[in-house]
């Protein structure tokens, strides 16, 4: 049996709006192995969240539409599952946590009831047993006094506690894959550190794989085994975390790494990536990054570069494409 858990092939998720078609995810391929942590990095509008929602089949339709592609999870194409099968898959096979737990938790039910509901639905146990498991789930995420906390409503908890409750809910059915979309962005640094630490140890305890979506390269360096860098709906670079940070190939990845202020760096102007993130309504032609790349070649303006595998480190950039001369 291969250790490939999730394999996305040529996924295109578009949104049809009055202003035109938004190719939010435009032909991406990526995979997550069993037990692995893959970080997906990119800025707003790069398609990282839509990729996550596509895996969960939570893209609102309309206006969204899966134009093409496959999402194989443990051998089944999620895009071909019936609604009923997909409902059973969510939670048990793949679960997701979001940036703002206050939005994802129901304010009128206690935290315990919400966790127990998921357990009842997926594990087919009775209400009493489900509540007992909900207490265990909160204990697992190191919530103090879990038997009291199950009776609390989301607004009675702090941001860090709510995120723990969300994680408890997501992990209550022991999914094989956890998708975490900016799980610590809304939290303070000290609480962020606690939650990342928690996620990391739970990953070992449960033995699941994780797809962590973030824009914070500090979080990536800390959590990832492999990294996928997305820009404007496409994967521009992919590789082991040490290669991405040590020898970034794509000018966008290099720019990102250079532009963050570092603690060990003297004050002075920061390196910048010029221009702005393009709108999905008006993605540039050719390589979508070419307008912001001072060293863009003529071919960059005209043709989109393919994702080339250079020994496990993939990049979509004409300057790293061996036969670029022939193409030009």
């Amino acid at each position, binding site marked *: 049996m291969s250790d490939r858990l999730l394999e996305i092939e040529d996924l295109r998720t578009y949104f049809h709006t009055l202003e035109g078609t938004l190719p939010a995810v435009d032909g991406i391929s990526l995979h997550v192995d069993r037990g692995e942590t893959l970080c997906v990095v990119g800025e707003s509008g790069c398609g990282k969240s839509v990729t996550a929602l596509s895996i969960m089949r939570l893209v609102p339709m309309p206006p969204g539409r899966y134009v093409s592609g496959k999402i194989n999870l443990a051998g089944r194409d999620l895009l071909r599952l019936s609604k009923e099968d997909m409902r059973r898959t969510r939670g048990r096979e793949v679960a997701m946590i979001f940036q703002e737990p206050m939005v994802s938790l129901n304010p009128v039910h206690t935290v315990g009831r919400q966790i127990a509901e998921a357990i009842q639905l997926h594990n087919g146990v009775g209400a009493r047993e489900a509540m007992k498991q909900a207490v265990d789930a909160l204990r697992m995420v190191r919530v103090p006094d879990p038997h009291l906390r199950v009776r609390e409503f989301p607004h009675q908890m702090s941001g*860090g506690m709510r995120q723990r409750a969300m994680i408890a809910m997501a992990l209550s059915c022991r999914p094989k894959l956890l998708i975490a979309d900016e799980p610590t962005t809304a939290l303070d640094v*000290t609480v962020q550190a606690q939650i990342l*630490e928690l996620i990391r140890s739970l990953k070992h305890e449960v033995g699941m794989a994780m797809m962590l979506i973030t824009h914070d390269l*500090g979080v990536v360096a*800390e959590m990832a085994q492999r990294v996928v860098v997305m820009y404007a709906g496409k994967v521009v670079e992919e590789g082991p975390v040490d290669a991405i940070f040590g020898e970034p190939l794509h000018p966008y990845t290099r720019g990102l790494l250079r532009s963050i*202020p570092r*603690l060990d760096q003297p004050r002075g102007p920061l390196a910048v990536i010029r221009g*702005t993130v393009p709108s999905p309504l008006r993605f540039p032609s050719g390589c979508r990054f070419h307008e912001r790349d001072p060293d863009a070649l003529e071919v960059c303006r005209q043709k989109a570069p393919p994702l080339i595998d250079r020994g496990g480190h993939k990049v979509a950039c004409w300057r790293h494409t061996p036969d670029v001369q022939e193409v030009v």
Partner: protein
Amino acid sequence: MAGTPNGTPLLQVTDLVKYFPVKAGALQRVVNHVRAVDGVTFTLARGQTLGLVGESGCGKTTLARVILRLIPATSGQVTFEGREVLKVPADVLRQLRREMQVIFQDPFSSLNPRMKVGSIVAEPLSIHTAMSRTERLRRVEELLEVVGLAGRDATRYPHEFSGGQRQRIGIARALVLNPKLIVCDEPVSALDVSIQSQILNLLNRLQKSYGLTYIFIAHGLHVIKHVSDRVAVMYLGKLVEETEADVLFEGPLHPYTRALVAAIPVPDPAARKIRAALQGDVPSPINPPPGCRFHTRCTEALPQCSQTEPPLVQVSAGHRVACHLYHGA
């Protein structure tokens, strides 16, 4: 005072307090207070940047608002170039408002969507000066170019701009009256990583060319390190440590500051470490813990920490700490 070169400080804040009443019951009686800012003292020299850090709810934004007199203080003093900000009559306050401006976090909600960019930037001019329409327009176009936009952008609406460009519009508006002090309240936290460095460089350039003084509020410590000359760390309404930026990041003294610095994610996979130095959440500012407010989360708490509150005292030149570990030593 040590650590304030360039002569007299531009801003002096002394024992500033802001309590918000908590009301309850049918009669809306005041039953308690949120101690948002509880006795803050610092000085800020001309042309310098004071970074203000702390977790959400520690009172940093409230502190900035009280200093600008956008909300009334409960007690304390704010002196801006010799004038008592909290006491001056309305006409002097008007003049002060020209000299103290603010840049907000969210460039999406802080610009009126129904106004053209030109009118947004010119609004302070029409309120505070007698400039003619053409003069105002010229000044607006000049400023839009200073912040890296085009003069013709004055005729467009905010929704036509990206987040980073909107933040530039907010900066142009803050600059239009030639202020001396600008409070930057999380100016880059809502922006994309590749845009943050553009805005930080812009703020840095403007500070140099106009001799601006900044109070820079951020929760991202690497940003604070990059922009600040001095840094003040707040916890539950109190300053717990204040010193030069380099000193603070290289040798933080207060256990809370140490935990904050340790919690900064480092963008280098080789430097992976256990960051979660601090357990638990920030307690409620309604009933802050007695003694040192941090003692409930402190790993080095002494017996007296839960009883007596440590004052903010100078431990070396220009370095103030409020912690029993460093007192009486």
